[in-house]
């Protein structure tokens, strides 16, 4: 509220998940969701990820991976958008359209919940101004309570304490994103594959690089892999005009590059 026009960094500092971020991006760029300029968003992502990494800390890695998931989703949207109306021919096109519809539905749903969450918060705050009368029982009533039946030995009592004090669930070490993935697809594996292909032939369009992807998930993973490769300066991108195909150039040298060099953050979920 203090800053009516928060910058990208400020906005990200209090986002509450990828959908929240996506809503924010759409709002920020005043764009229809189908017209999100992927390049500008990607630039911002990369800038932000770098910043997070400079700051260090595990949480930064978690957030970065979530942003990348959204970046990939945007890619899906854009790809679906590029399909000329009425020319849905193969399964890939249909899958992209389905992915877009699914994301739309989920985004709308999230937006609705975000709004009612705001209402809930306001109500809870207002209601919090009323304090219930909740006083200790007057002594003469407390004295009327039936005498407690107590059958626990100190040992039984200790066993109860043991059970109660044992931590219930292990602390999650990172924000899981497994719920966002249908089945594990390794970004590192895809990066290795893309690396090989690009070393053989460069530049290639993104469309070509994902042409053989058998699921949306693989498309997402390859997109994530490209961002990762870009960060490691193994690839560069160019796009001749808005909405034109994205060309990927290999800049990582020949032979001396391997996917093992990638940071560990995109390793497969256990």
């Amino acid at each position, binding site marked *: *509220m*203090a800053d*009516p026009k*928060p910058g990208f960094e400020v*906005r990200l500092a*209090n986002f*509450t*998940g*990828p*959908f*929240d971020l996506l*809503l*924010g991006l*759409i*709002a*920020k760029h*005043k764009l*229809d*969701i189908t017209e999100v300029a992927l390049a500008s968003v990607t630039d911002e992502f990369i800038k932000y990820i770098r910043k997070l990494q400079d700051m260090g800390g595990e949480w930064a890695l978690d957030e970065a991976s*979530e942003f990348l998931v959204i970046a990939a989703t945007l890619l899906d949207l854009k790809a679906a958008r590029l399909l000329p109306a009425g020319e849905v021919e193969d399964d890939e096109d249909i899958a992209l359209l389905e992915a877009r519809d699914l994301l*739309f539905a*989920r*985004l*709308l*749903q*999230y*937006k*609705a*919940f*975000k*709004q*009612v*969450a*705001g*209402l*809930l*918060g306001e*109500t*809870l*705050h*207002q*209601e*919090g*101004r*009323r*304090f*219930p*009368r*909740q*006083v200790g*029982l*007057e002594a003469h*009533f407390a004295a009327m309570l039936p005498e407690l039946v107590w059958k626990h030995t100190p040992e039984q009592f200790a066993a109860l304490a043991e059970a109660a004090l044992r931590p219930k*669930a292990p602390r*999650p070490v990172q*924000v*899981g*994103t497994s*719920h*966002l993935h249908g089945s594990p697809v390794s970004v590192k594996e895809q990066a290795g594959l893309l690396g090989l292909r690009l070393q053989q032939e460069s530049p290639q369009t993104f469309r070509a690089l994902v042409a053989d992807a058998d699921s949306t998930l693989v498309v997402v993973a390859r997109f994530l892999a490209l961002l990762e490769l870009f960060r490691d300066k193994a690839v560069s991108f160019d796009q001749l005009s808005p909405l034109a195909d994205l060309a990927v150039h290999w800049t990582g040298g020949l032979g001396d590059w391997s996917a093992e060099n990638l940071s560990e953050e995109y390793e497969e979920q256990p």
Partner: protein
Amino acid sequence: MNGQLPESTLPGRNVHDLPGGAKAALEAVLMVLDQPATEDELAAGLELPVDAIRAILAELEREYNGYTVNAPDKEEVSTAGFGSSPRGFELRNIAGGWRIYSRAEFADIVGKYVLDGQTARLTQAALETLAVIAYRQPVSRARVSAIRGVNVDSVVRTLAQRGLIEDAGTDPESGAILYRTTSYFLERMGIGSVADLPQLSPHLPGLEGIAEFYDADRM
């Protein structure tokens, strides 16, 4: 049950003989409640028909809120306004029961005395998770995660610790733990049941207004 009995056979008839009658007796019981009491519970405790209890509760509620009828002599009786002016407390029917609360207008003053009542505001993440659980209950963490797009394990734990949600058994298919809101949640919301929550559907339009809504609640 007592509500079915003809009034003349009630053993508790003598409540009317006490000073202030049934109304004062009900007030006396309201003084020792530590959670909302249903009309049935109050009727059983006072040995009065539920209808009678309901009528007295309505009267007390109105009385505490202040009558609009003028008591002609009120100025003589009290210097601070009496009879028709609202009391410092109110009787409310929430979460299925009746209970006495301090009036919201005095929150700043009362808050100085109530150490424990100070509950920290929920974060945006916690509110969103609470909203999804409230509208989709009973619901598993996985489903909440899918709707919010993030892992909600720690937020769910916090909401449970705060008593706003609880375990509602396991999903017969997946075996996942299901969660639902508690009656304490209803109490904190000041509503009778989850059916009283605002409708979700009006919040499901297209994305046209997204910029407006998004910037409005950014802090």
